[in-house]
C-alpha cells in the first residue's frame, strides 16, 4: 500500500466513527486508539460547529430574541450520543445534527410565525451541502464537462425543492441586522430550490412551476422533447430552465455509455 493510501485510511478513521471502531482499522495498529478517538471527537465538534454557524446563521442572529443559539447543541447530550455513528460529511450525519439544531431552536417560547419555515430552510441548506465532492478537477474531465451539451438531464442527488408558507427571501437580509424586534415575514406560498455544485457550493433560487416540473421529470432517461411534453412547456423553455439548474448544481447531464 502506498503512503498516500495509508494516509487515506487515517483520514477515514478520523472522519468515520463506525470504521474507527472496526476490526479492519484497529488491527492495523497505526496509532494510539485513545488519542485517535479524542482527536476524532474534537474534529466532529469542529466540523459541525462550522456548518451550524454558517447554515443556521439566521437562527443564530435571532438568538437575541429566542435565547437559543443553534451551536449550543454541540455541548448537549444529544450530540454526544451521535458521535459513535457520525461520518463527517455524510448526508445522514448532517440530517441527524441538523435535526438536533431544529429541535433546540424550535423549543424557544418566543413566538416567531416564520420560524418553522426558517428552520426547514436552514436544515435543507446544511443537508444539501453534505456528500462527496470534487476537490480537484481532472483536466480531461473538465474538458469533457465543458463540451457536454448532449445527453439526458438528471436531478442531482440531494437537490431539494422546499415549499414554504412564508416568503423568507424577503426578510432574510434584515434578520442579520442588529435590531431587537423580528421583521415581519410576508405570509406567501414560496418555493425555494436548494442545490449544491460538485465543488460543494450551496445555492438557493426561487422555484417556478417550470423548475418544479422539470426537476420531477429529470431522471437521466427522458429527452428534451419528452421533458417538454411531460412538463407541458416549450422545448426552448425547458432548455433555458435546464441551463439555470445546471448552473446551480441541481441538474447534470448523463453521458450514457
Amino acid at each position: 500500500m502506498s503512503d498516500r493510501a495509508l494516509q487515506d485510511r487515517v483520514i477515514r478513521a478520523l472522519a468515520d466513527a463506525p470504521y474507527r471502531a472496526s476490526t479492519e482499522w484497529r488491527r492495523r495498529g497505526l496509532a494510539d486508539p485513545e488519542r485517535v478517538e479524542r482527536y476524532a471527537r474534537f474534529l466532529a465538534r469542529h466540523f459541525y460547529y462550522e456548518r451550524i454557524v454558517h447554515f443556521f446563521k439566521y437562527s443564530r442572529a435571532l438568538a437575541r430574541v429566542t435565547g437559543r443559539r443553534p451551536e449550543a447543541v454541540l455541548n448537549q447530550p444529544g450530540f454526544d450520543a451521535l458521535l459513535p455513528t457520525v461520518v463527517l460529511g455524510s448526508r445522514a450525519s448532517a440530517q441527524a445534527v441538523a435535526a438536533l439544531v431544529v429541535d433546540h431552536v424550535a423549543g424557544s417560547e418566543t413566538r416567531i410565525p416564520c420560524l418553522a419555515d426558517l428552520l426547514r430552510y436552514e436544515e435543507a441548506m446544511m443537508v444539501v451541502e453534505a456528500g462527496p465532492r470534487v476537490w480537484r478537477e481532472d483536466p480531461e474531465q473538465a474538458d469533457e464537462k465543458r463540451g457536454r451539451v448532449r445527453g439526458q438531464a438528471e436531478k442531482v442527488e440531494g437537490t431539494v425543492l422546499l415549499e414554504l408558507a412564508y416568503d423568507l427571501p424577503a426578510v432574510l437580509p434584515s434578520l442579520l441586522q442588529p435590531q431587537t424586534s423580528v421583521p415581519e415575514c410576508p405570509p406567501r406560498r414560496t418555493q425555494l430550490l436548494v442545490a449544491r455544485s460538485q465543488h460543494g457550493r450551496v445555492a438557493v433560487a426561487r422555484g417556478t412551476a417550470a423548475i418544479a416540473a422539470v426537476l420531477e421529470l429529470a431522471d437521466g432517461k427522458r429527452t428534451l422533447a419528452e421533458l417538454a411534453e411531460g412538463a407541458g412547456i416549450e422545448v426552448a423553455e425547458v432548455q433555458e430552465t435546464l441551463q439555470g439548474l445546471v448552473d446551480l448544481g441541481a441538474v447534470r447531464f448523463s453521458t450514457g455509455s
Partner: protein
Amino acid sequence: MRNAELMVGAFYNPHLGAELARAEGIDHLAMADPPAAGDPWWPKIHERYTLLLHDYLGQLSEPLDERSIQRARALAKLYRSPWVAEHFQCLHTEDGRYTLNYVFPPLYTEEFLERFVRNANALKARLDQPLVMENIPRFFDVKASQMPEPVWLRRFFEATETGFLLDLPHVWLEAHYRGLEPRAWLAEFPLEHVVELHVAGVEQDDDLKGPWIAPAEPSDEMLEFTAHAAALCPQAKAVTFDAFSPSLSADVLFRSVERIRRAL
C-alpha cells in the same frame, strides 16, 4: 529580542470589520476567506491594510488543478499580497469521500516529501508572489512516518526554496504532547527559512483532554516563546495573531496584537 521592523497583525474577522476598519496599531491582516459580497467594511480594509493571502488553496499532496491555481492567483492579485500561504496538510481522501475540514498533516515519509516538493514547485511557478508553507501539528503519531517532522520540513524547504510560515502554538502543542521542552523542539526546525510567524492562545479542550489552539489571547509563556523564536528567524517579516472565529471578540484581538508587539 528583535524587532522594530517586524510587521504585527491579525486575521481579518468580518464580524469585527467595523472595529478593524478604524483600528490603529495593526500593520497587516491575513485573509482566511475571500471578502463576502455584502461586506460593507471590505473597501476600507482593502484600502488601508497590507493583506496576506491565507486561504485554503488546496492540499499539495496532489497537484492543484487549474481552477484552484487561477483562484489563488486572483486572490493574491486582489489582496496585493506580498506572499501566498498554504499548509502542510492532507485532510481529504484522494477520492473526495472523506474530509476532516481541519488542517491535518501528511505522513512524514519520502513519498509524501516527493509529492509536496513536486506540487509546491509547480504551484510556485504559477504564482507571481513567493509561496510560504505553514507547519501543522499532529495530536498523535502514526507509525508509518519515516522521519521527524523538522527533518522532513528542512528537506522540503531546501528542495523548493519556499518560505516557512512558522506557527508557534503548533510547535508548542507538539512539544507539550511529546513531553518535550518547547524551545528545544523549536531549535530542530529550519528557522532560517521563516518569513512569517503565527501566534495564538491555547485553551483546555474537553475532547482532547489537553490544550489546543483557541481564539484566545496568547499567554505570557507563549509571548516569551514568540520573542525567543523571532530572535532566531533572521528573515522573518511579520508576526500574525492567528485567530479566526465568529466567537473572537474585538477586545481579545486588539489586546493580543498589542501584547505581541510589546513582547517582540
